[in-house]
C-alpha cells in the first residue's frame, strides 16, 4: 500500500544554497502538512495545505521558506539561502480533509544537513 513518500531521504548542502524537498501524499488525501523535527525545537508545524491552497502558513520560520502544492497532490518545500539552523528532519504528513478528526499519516522524512 502506498504511504506518504518523501524525497530525498537525505540532503547535505552548503550554507547559502537553495534546497527543494518533495512530498507525495497518500492518494485521496486532501490535506497535507509539513513539520520540522530538530533536537532543540522538537516537532514544529510549518504549513498546512487543503487542496492546493495554504490557509495556515503560520509556522514558516522566515521568508526563506516557501511551499507549494499542485494538482492537489505533490508538495514541494523550498528553503532558499540555507542556514545551519535549518538543519533538521523535515516531515510531511497527509490526511483526509475534514474537521480535524482524521489522523495524519507521516512520511519517513528528509534529513537536511547544512554545512
Amino acid at each position: 500500500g502506498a504511504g506518504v513518500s518523501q524525497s530525498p531521504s537525505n540532503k547535505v548542502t552548503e550554507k547559502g544554497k537553495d534546497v527543494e524537498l518533495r512530498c507525495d501524499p497518500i492518494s485521496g488525501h486532501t490535506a497535507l502538512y509539513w513539520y520540522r523535527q530538530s533536537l532543540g525545537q522538537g516537532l514544529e508545524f510549518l504549513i498546512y495545505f487543503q487542496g492546493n491552497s495554504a490557509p495556515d502558513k503560520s509556522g514558516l520560520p522566515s521568508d526563506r521558506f516557501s511551499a507549494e502544492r499542485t494538482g492537489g497532490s505533490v508538495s514541494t518545500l523550498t528553503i532558499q539561502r540555507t542556514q545551519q539552523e535549518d538543519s533538521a528532519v523535515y516531515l510531511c504528513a497527509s490526511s483526509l480533509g475534514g474537521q480535524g478528526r482524521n489522523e495524519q499519516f507521516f512520511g519517513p522524512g528528509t534529513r537536511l544537513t547544512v554545512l
Partner: protein
Amino acid sequence: AQSVAQPEDQVNVAEGNPLTVKCTYSVSGNPYLFWYVQYPNRGLQFLLKYITGDNLVKGSYGFEAEFNKSQTSFHLKKPSALVSDSALYFCAVREGEWGFQKLVFGTGTRLLVSP
C-alpha cells in the same frame, strides 16, 4: 493556544510489566488528542486518537489511552510491555479552527523496555 505536556523525558520498564506514558493537555473547547510513535530513523506512526465517546481508546499494537477530563490527562498505556515497544512517543493535540488541522506535539517521551 492548545498545548500538551509530557512530563517524563524517559520511561524505563521491564518486559512483561505494564507501561504508562503520561500526557496532560490544555485546550479550549473539545480536545482532539492523538498518540504517535517514532522508531529510530523512521517517521511518526499513528497509534490512537480521542475525539469523542468512550474515555478508554484502544489503538494499534495493544496500546490504549484513557481520556480523563477532570485531570486533563490522556495517558498512554499497555498491559504488558515488549522490548520492541522501545521508541519515542509523542502526544499531540489538534489546534486551530474548524478545518485547520495542525497538530501541536509534546516534547516526546523515550520508552526503554529492558529484557
